[in-house]
């Protein structure tokens, strides 16, 4: 035997499948820890309870006395306890809890530790919600964009904040997408350069925190997008998306250079691969598709539908 045999086994080790329950199991471990720590600190807690009540009284008094202090609290984006840092698999990730009647109530941005952060808050009946609703997020390149799908969301008050987010350092555009599922809301954040990203899910109150930094090491590469023509009405792009979904293709909807919507499936590295897929799709659907060469932040071209 030589050491190479061991290195060969390493490949197998790296391929050990991570079960989907892992996150849940870790969460249970943390909850057990929290309960234990809570019990430990309960006695200590009772001792300091009196001083806490005193502090609370003072805080309430100061909020009531000073209107500016009261106002400043309202404008703060709320970040709750960290639930998890999203792990991305092929550019996609998901999380959250099943809820309904959510309002995506506020989006705000702030800078911290060299990261540009975007916080998204969720509410129910004008109160901040405890858990983030079930969501999916994916990051794609050429152009660099993140697409969010929030389930159980019925309202999007945060749309008013879009202008504010456009001032954020890396954000090129932010817009809502049409979806045929009336219990889902989708939106896209486009970036003006390749970014390193980290997303945290937080609870009590619910928030998604996206931390962004320029990805300086990223090397831009040319890709070939297989896309539809551009539609003035977003629902036409969403309809092609749904048709492709039924035959097993993942896709995304984007805005082109003129602000019209189109749908595209995953980018291909070579024109040949894209052409092959185009031919395959031609046999399966009657959606008119075309191939577009693209690189970096270059705006997708507009091919208005007739």
């Amino acid at each position, binding site marked *: *035997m030589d050491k190479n*045999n*061991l290195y060969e*086994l390493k490949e197998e080790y790296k391929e050990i499948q*991570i079960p989907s329950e892992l*996150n849940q*199991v870790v969460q249970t*471990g943390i909850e057990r*820890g929290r309960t234990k720590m809570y019990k430990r600190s309960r006695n200590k807690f009772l001792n300091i309870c009196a001083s806490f009540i005193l502090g609370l009284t003072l805080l309430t008094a100061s909020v009531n006395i000073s209107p500016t202090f009261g106002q400043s609290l309202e404008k703060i984006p709320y*970040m709750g306890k960290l639930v998890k840092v999203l792990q991305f698999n092929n550019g996609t990730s998901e999380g959250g809890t099943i809820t309904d009647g959510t309002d995506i109530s506020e989006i705000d941005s702030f800078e911290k530790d060299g990261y540009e952060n975007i916080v998204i808050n969720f509410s129910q009946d004008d109160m901040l919600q405890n858990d983030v609703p079930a969501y999916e997020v994916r990051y794609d390149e050429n152009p660099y964009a993140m697409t969010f799908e929030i389930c159980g969301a019925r309202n999007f008050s945060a749309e008013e904040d879009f202008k504010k987010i456009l001032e954020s350092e890396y954000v090129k555009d932010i817009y809502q997408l049409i979806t045929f599922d009336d219990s889902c809301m989708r939106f896209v954040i486009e970036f003006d350069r390749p970014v390193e990203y980290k997303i945290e899910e937080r609870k009590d109150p619910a928030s998604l925190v996206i931390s962004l930094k320029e990805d300086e090491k990223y090397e831009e590469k040319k890709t070939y997008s297989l896309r539809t023509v551009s539609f003035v009405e977003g629902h036409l792009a969403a309809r092609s998306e749904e048709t492709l979904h039924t035959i097993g293709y993942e896709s995304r909807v984007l805005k082109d250079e003129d602000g019209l919507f189109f749908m595209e499936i995953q980018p291909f590295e070579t024109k040949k691969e894209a052409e092959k897929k185009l031919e395959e799709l031609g046999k399966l659907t009657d959606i008119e598709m075309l191939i577009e060469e693209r690189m970096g932040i270059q705006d997708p071209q507009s091919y208005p539908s007739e």
Partner: protein
Amino acid sequence: MAIGFSKNKLLREREDSFLSLINENQEKLYRIAYSYVKNKDDALDIVQETVYKAYISYHKVKNIQYENTWLTRILINTCIDFIKKNQKVVAIDMKFIENTSHFNNDNFQQKVEVKEAIDKLNEKQKTVIILRFFEDMKLEEIAKILESPVSTIKSILYRALNEMNITLKE
């Protein structure tokens, strides 16, 4: 811009940094646990126990740069405790068997032999082999995890490699 925190900021930061630590390492923890016990359910139990133990003693970690080492140490101790408690009962996942079945035949026999050889090692030797060859750790890191001098780790490693050699020649 300020960020709203509803609890003690220090406690919250500590909790956040703990959760980041766990999130970044959970897959690694699972893989190491799985290589000890070779089945999903036990590996998940071990990960849960590790996270629990780590949570309740995280405030004792003074030097944040060693928190990864500290976490891995807890995991390995939990694995060894688990194996001692459940000695002679080895539940192997069907997946583990399937995992091994896609190799071509020449390689397959050799790999099974290496695996058997690893299984025959004692727990400390097995730990050093997993961390050194599968997790690509440096001997210094392994020494910190196992709280032993580097020279001891080296001799454990060489003895393990030696024993595996002997086992294979038999």
